[in-house]
């Protein structure tokens, strides 16, 4: 009996020793998390900054605050990976280096990620409970971004001028030009204007109005209730225009801002959850992406919609 007990004790001791050695060895691999300068930090009211610092800054700023338990591998490895990807996607310390419109768009996107429960990451909040936003904090954030929403004024002459300029005849029309191509190889598809409208949106966050067109495959999928997942070959084209308001509250589309495509091919675009993304901006249809990795930004924003095949706007029953 005593012999068995002794054998078990020795066995446990050996396992513990191996684990201890392993844990010590793990600490040797310690990728650096550098807290660099934060000279272009976001400027916001103190209550907003307090929420951002509490919930976002550890991964989305240059002032990561590591607790003692964050510094022990393997937890440290996960924290380091979060910080690296987090700073790349959004960095509140480099905030002012972005154009003002992009700053606002990022804030709206961040609030939407929080509302959808995609941020802060569950794997982070399991340990860092302080990062979970209270309903009151979320209300404060929503009120703040709402205060940044585009303000339309009736008869906005600058917007009218931009629209008028776009209506002037061009030296070379699009049919004569080479079609622009995104960095991921997706070319501008001029035929979308003849597709069926599947919905429309009023984007009061950025002062645009949008129409979503679907190709025949998309339209058929809506008719047959096959929208989750959407079938391969589905293409959406979402077009955005400025909002022009008159004195009676009538709003009509002004200047063309951009067209965005989502193309479904579960094999070709497997790395972005089956969707190929493209965005062509201004009337000159300038491709949005600076590198082929731009689509990662697209899918990150769409990720909270994973239960609806990453599509935000519900198509209208046809």
């Amino acid at each position: 009996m005593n012999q068995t007990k002794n054998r078990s004790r020795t066995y446990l001791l050996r396992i513990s020793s191996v684990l201890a050695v392993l844990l010590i060895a793990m600490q040797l691999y310690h990728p650096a998390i550098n807290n660099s300068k934060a000279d272009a930090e976001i400027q916001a009211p103190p209550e907003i900054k307090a929420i951002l610092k509490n919930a976002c800054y550890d991964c989305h700023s240059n002032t990561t605050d590591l607790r003692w338990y964050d510094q022990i591998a393997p937890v440290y490895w996960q924290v380091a990976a979060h910080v690296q990807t987090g700073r790349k996607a959004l960095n509140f310390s480099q905030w002012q280096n972005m154009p003002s419109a992009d700053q606002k768009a990022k804030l709206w996107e961040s609030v939407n990620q929080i509302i959808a429960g995609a941020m802060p990451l569950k794997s982070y909040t399991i340990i860092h409970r302080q990062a979970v936003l209270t309903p009151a904090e979320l209300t404060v954030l929503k009120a703040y971004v709402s205060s940044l929403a585009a303000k339309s004024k009736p008869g906005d002459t600058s917007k009218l001028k931009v629209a008028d300029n776009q209506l002037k005849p061009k030296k070379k029309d699009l049919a004569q030009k080479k079609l622009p191509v995104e960095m991921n190889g997706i070319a501008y598809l001029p035929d979308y204007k003849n597709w069926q409208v599947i919905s429309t949106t009023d984007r009061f966050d950025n002062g645009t109005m949008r129409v979503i067109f679907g190709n025949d495959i998309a339209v058929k999928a809506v008719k047959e209730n096959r929208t989750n997942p959407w079938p391969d070959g589905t293409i959406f084209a979402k077009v955005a225009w400025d909002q022009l308001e008159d004195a009676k509250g009538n709003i009509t589309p002004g200047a063309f801002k951009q067209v965005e495509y989502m193309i479904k091919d579960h094999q070709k675009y497997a790395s972005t959850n089956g969707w190929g993304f493209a965005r062509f901006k201004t009337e000159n249809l300038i491709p949005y992406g600076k590198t082929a990795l731009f689509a990662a930004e697209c899918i990150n924003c769409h990720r909270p919609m994973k239960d609806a095949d990453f599509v935000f706007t519900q198509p209208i029953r046809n």
Partner: protein
Amino acid sequence: MKRFIISVATCVLALNACRDNTGKTGFINERAALPESLKSLTVNQKFTTSAMNKTAGTMSVLYAGKGNLTLVTWKKKGDENWFGANVPDSLLTVEVLHSPYPGSAHVELYNCFDHNGQLMKQDSLAEITRIGYISSLKPSIFP
């Protein structure tokens, strides 16, 4: 053990029974759909422009084709998937202007249908106002 497995299986079944497999409000916007009798007015018709009215809280899409201008108008509601957007809610009206000569200002017929596809009666002043408004909508700009 057997009792435990049965309990777990019952819980899983119960939870799944409660889950709405069509998503939060379904993957398709059913409320904004046109009644069957009016669908042909927009299917295969050319999108012309979109419009909204801040005071009325409405949003519309204008189509052109077969000598008709068709304006579909919805009540708008906050997008449950994007804080910062409004999307079509229930259908309000489908208005049809018929002109015998496409592009001409002469309107031969004006009809306004409600969300059920029933023809609505309007006084002539309201009719003139609506014809004026719909005719004034300019095509959206496409590069």
